[in-house]
């Protein structure tokens, strides 16, 4: 057997998943071929590479992050504890049956109907119609996002935020809904996801100013830390006075204060 033929079998040989006859062929080849047998030897030696240990501070940092997260969650307003239970397929049906959900999927069916109709009517539909359909589909997607962001169940809202990131371009209405979510959503998860989605659109001036403003309003340490990190990532020097103000708040979580100090240093 030649090296090229062995090359196809070698990865499976290394994984130990060759059939007995193939195994015999490969082993016979390896006895004669220095290059291939060296590759196998190197593969085996890779397991001898030293395992590095992360520093002990790593565990401490993780604990602090987890604590901040748990604290943030227990600060959530009451009346929402059952949102987790809703995170099931049932909630999707529930949503589809709600008036907004119904509007969204009727629009979806209508758009699909028009689309299929045009497709069937002629092999090459004129492009203006296609453009109209395209924009209708985009509008529909926005409608879905907007209605999902208003759902009772946190997981549906989370899904809405995720949907909003599917489009490169953000519709102004969706943008303002996301900004609203960032500031007022009762769930920490949803606020964090909204920040994540918004961070892609830092070119929009409202996005940056909203993140700065949210800094003063947010109570959850986890969201505060995420906001601070975002500002550092943008190198937003204008945020510095706001960070100074934040770190002087009397009952600020120590981790957040530390993070703010770090950020002020970074922005200098």
């Amino acid at each position: 057997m030649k090296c090229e033929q062995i090359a196809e079998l070698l990865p499976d040989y290394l994984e130990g998943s060759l059939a007995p006859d193939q195994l015999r062929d490969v082993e016979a080849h390896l006895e004669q071929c220095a290059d291939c047998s060296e590759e196998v030897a190197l593969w085996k030696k890779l397991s001898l590479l030293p395992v590095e240990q992360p520093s002990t501070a790593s565990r401490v940092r993780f604990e602090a992050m987890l604590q901040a997260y748990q604290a943030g969650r227990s600060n959530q307003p009451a009346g929402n504890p059952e949102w987790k239970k809703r995170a099931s397929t049932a909630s999707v049906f529930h949503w589809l049956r709600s008036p907004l959900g119904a509007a969204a999927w009727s629009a979806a069916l209508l758009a699909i109907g028009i689309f299929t109709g045009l497709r069937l009517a002629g092999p090459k539909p004129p492009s203006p119609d296609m453009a109209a359909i395209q924009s209708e589909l985009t509008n529909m997607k926005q409608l879905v996002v907007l209605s999902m962001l208003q759902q009772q169940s946190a997981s549906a809202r989370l899904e809405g935020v995720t949907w909003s990131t599917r489009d490169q371009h953000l519709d102004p209405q969706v943008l303002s809904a996301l900004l609203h979510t960032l500031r007022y959503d009762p769930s920490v998860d949803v606020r964090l996801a909204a920040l994540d989605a918004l961070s892609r659109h830092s070119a929009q001036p409202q996005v940056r100013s909203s993140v700065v403003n949210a800094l003063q309003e947010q109570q959850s340490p986890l969201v505060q830390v995420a906001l601070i990190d975002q500002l550092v990532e943008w190198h937003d020097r204008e945020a510095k006075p706001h960070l100074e103000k934040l770190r002087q708040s009397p009952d600020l979580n120590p981790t957040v204060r530390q993070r703010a100090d770090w950020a002020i240093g970074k922005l200098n």
Partner: protein
Amino acid sequence: MTFAPDEDVMLQVRDGAGEMLGVLFDRYQTPLFNFYSKLTGDRTLSEDLVQEVFLRILKYRQSYRPGTPFRAWIYQIARNARIDHFRKFPRERVFEPEMLPPVIPADSAQEQQEVELLQRALALLPEDKREILLLCRFQELKYEEIAELLGCQLNTVRTRIHRALQELRKSFHQLTQGTALKRANSAAPGNIPPRGGCREV
């Protein structure tokens, strides 16, 4: 409880038992740290990325579906975290072999030297080749899992592993020849060690 499969622990985390994430952190922080440090050569960054992975797990825990192999899921997050990081902060320095950790003395001096050279050879590979070798050899992911992770066919994974190994052999050779030359300069001509290639497997 400690021996519960990763998937069961993750489902508990998803359903609100955030403190159970500590179990997964203990299981995965060292492998993930090594994945990053061997890929980037930067310890501090690797620790930051490990933290980022666990923060993302908390943030997106609702998206974990029962039946998803946890290992593949966490490595997906880990890869994305690294990609996002370098997208936001284009790298200032490349992997320098000088940043490699010391090799713990092995059974013999020769073996120790070989492992050191192997580590350098690995650091010289292009990042995608280094990554695939780390994923299958060091992180012990199955080929199917890697195919899903990289979004390619199973056969492509096999080909890529083989190409990476070929390149590893070449750069290992260059290094062994370099060391052999150095030794030849400092030792008697008769003491030049044989070329590293043709050993028995």
